[in-house]
């Protein structure tokens, strides 16, 4: 009762909602880059929303399921096939034993998620299953998945399908409300007013291009140089996921899941949480625009996404229950 990695992919790790409560020791939360995709995949297979999932980039891993499994893919669409048959993202899917799951090309997005019903049988590190590559802890042996790795599943798929063919359940998660495209909304940061009036205008009107050296720590942007009106030495203070820092070069970085806990560069803004899944799915050379918003809007959008997920999970329970009543 396990899955086996036949090919590792570019950067394949176990992630959950992140490691909370250790930032005062410099241990960052990490966790899934696209939390909503992780939660959608979990909802579709009736897992707890924050169960650990496999996060992958393209080229993606090739995975063999030793036992019959009930899975869902969400986030990026990498044109998945199960034993050669195309399968969609955002649907629950039954896979018979020995199915090989692979991903063939990038269609949309940058980061894919695989949830398996029941979850992966892992040991936690500091109350989380997220992989922290920097200290080599958490997830699966604290590292990216490699060819030959076998990850145990906590239990068998509850539902037994027809046994031979993979089967795509006919209901689909609506995820549109998780994926804002431009402009991305931000709460102005404490150092926003260090920018010159001209730079403030540029920041909210011009485009900023994601650079290739972007990763799970942060997305580096290239755009018009942002001048500061007041040049001050800042002392280190906390930063968080979504924080937009102005680097000494006048360019920016948006901090992502594996951000440092503290930083000493001016924080000109914070991308609102509800827009971070959309941002996570943007790739190199894509152009971002930013627009300011307020806390009232930001908090309500985040809560609305949570409610949408809860509804999705409830709907999945009902759908699967109804589906079971249909005789094969």
């Amino acid at each position, binding site marked *: 009762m396990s899955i086996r990695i036949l090919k590792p992919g570019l950067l394949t790790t176990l992630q959950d909602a992140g490691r909370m409560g250790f930032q005062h020791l410099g241990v960052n939360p990490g966790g899934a880059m696209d939390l909503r995709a992780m939660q959608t995949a979990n909802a579709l297979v009736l897992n707890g929303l924050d169960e650990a999932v496999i996060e992958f980039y393209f080229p993606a891993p090739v995975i063999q399921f030793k036992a019959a499994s009930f899975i869902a893919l969400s986030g990026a669409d990498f044109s998945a096939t199960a034993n050669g048959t195309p399968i969609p993202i955002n649907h629950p899917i039954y896979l018979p034993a020995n199915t090989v799951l692979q991903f063939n090309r990038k269609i949309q997005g940058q980061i894919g998620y695989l949830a398996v019903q029941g979850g992966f049988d892992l040991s936690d*590190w500091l109350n989380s299953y997220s992989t922290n590559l920097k200290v080599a802890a958490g997830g699966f042996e604290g590292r990216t998945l490699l060819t030959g790795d076998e990850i145990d599943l906590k239990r068998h798929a509850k539902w037994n399908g027809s046994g031979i063919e993979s089967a795509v359940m006919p209901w689909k998660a609506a995820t549109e409300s998780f994926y804002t495209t431009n402009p991305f909304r931000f709460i102005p940061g*404490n150092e926003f007013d260090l920018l010159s009036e001209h730079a403030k205008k540029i920041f909210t009107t011009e485009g900023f291009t994601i650079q290739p050296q972007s990763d799970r720590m942060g997305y580096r942007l290239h755009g018009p140089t942002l001048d500061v009106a007041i040049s001050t030495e800042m*002392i280190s*203070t906390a930063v968080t996921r979504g924080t937009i820092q102005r680097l000494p070069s006048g360019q920016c970085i948006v901090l992502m899941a594996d951000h440092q806990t503290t930083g000493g560069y001016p924080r000109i803004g914070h991308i609102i949480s509800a827009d971070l899944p959309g941002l996570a799915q943007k790739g190199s050379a894509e152009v971002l625009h930013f627009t300011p918003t307020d806390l009232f809007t930001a908090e309500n959008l985040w809560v609305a996404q949570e409610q949408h997920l809860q509804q999705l999970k409830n709907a999945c329970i009902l759908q699967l229950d109804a589906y079971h009543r249909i005789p094969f």
Partner: protein
Amino acid sequence: MEAPAYHIYPLGDRGLTIELGKDINATTNRQVHQLFRQLQHNPIQFVSDIIPAYSSVSIIYDTNAIKKAFPHELAFDYVKGQLIDRLNSLDTYETNHLIKHIPVCYDVSLAPDLKAVAAHAQISVEELIRIHTALVYTVYMIGFLPGFPYMASVDKKIQMPRKAQPQLIVPAGSVGIAGEQTGIYPLDSPGGWQLIGQTPLLLFDVALETPCLLEPGQQVQFNAISLAEFYAIKKEISA
């Protein structure tokens, strides 16, 4: 004790920061750690992380859970109100006064910048070691890497700015100086501090339930050890 002057601002939509000062100084930092202790002992509901820094404390909270409990309030306002309530009795929780002694080997084979720092200070290497080990430092904050302690204040005589070009790999355990700060690299990593020694101790050990050797607010003093002692301790730890 009277509440210190403060400024509270949002750190995105799931966090806030309270700033108690704008510079690195012992008084402000003591207030930071008193507030940190206060928030640990008297926690605000729905808070997941409390991050003390030089002159600020940041709080990360579960916006969704707060909005569920208090639908008509901003989550930010709820946490801010709870925080202000806790500002008036900061001296209830003092930080740990026990001094943590950390063995450091100041041998040039482990300290690539030892001679440069001594030259910069126009003193002998022996005098540099004597000054660096004479003072008790405070862990002002932990950040940058898991378990990296920012400690201050280094004696003015041996202060030296960080390097213009960071070194690509600083070995774990390296003890460095940057201006008035001294710190220890817990992991192999890039770094720009002037490296004057190395400790055989593990600053961060993932195998331990409490992985971090030091905690924010802690007092630290360095003890000079020989190269032979350094390798003996190192061997003992890895055994």
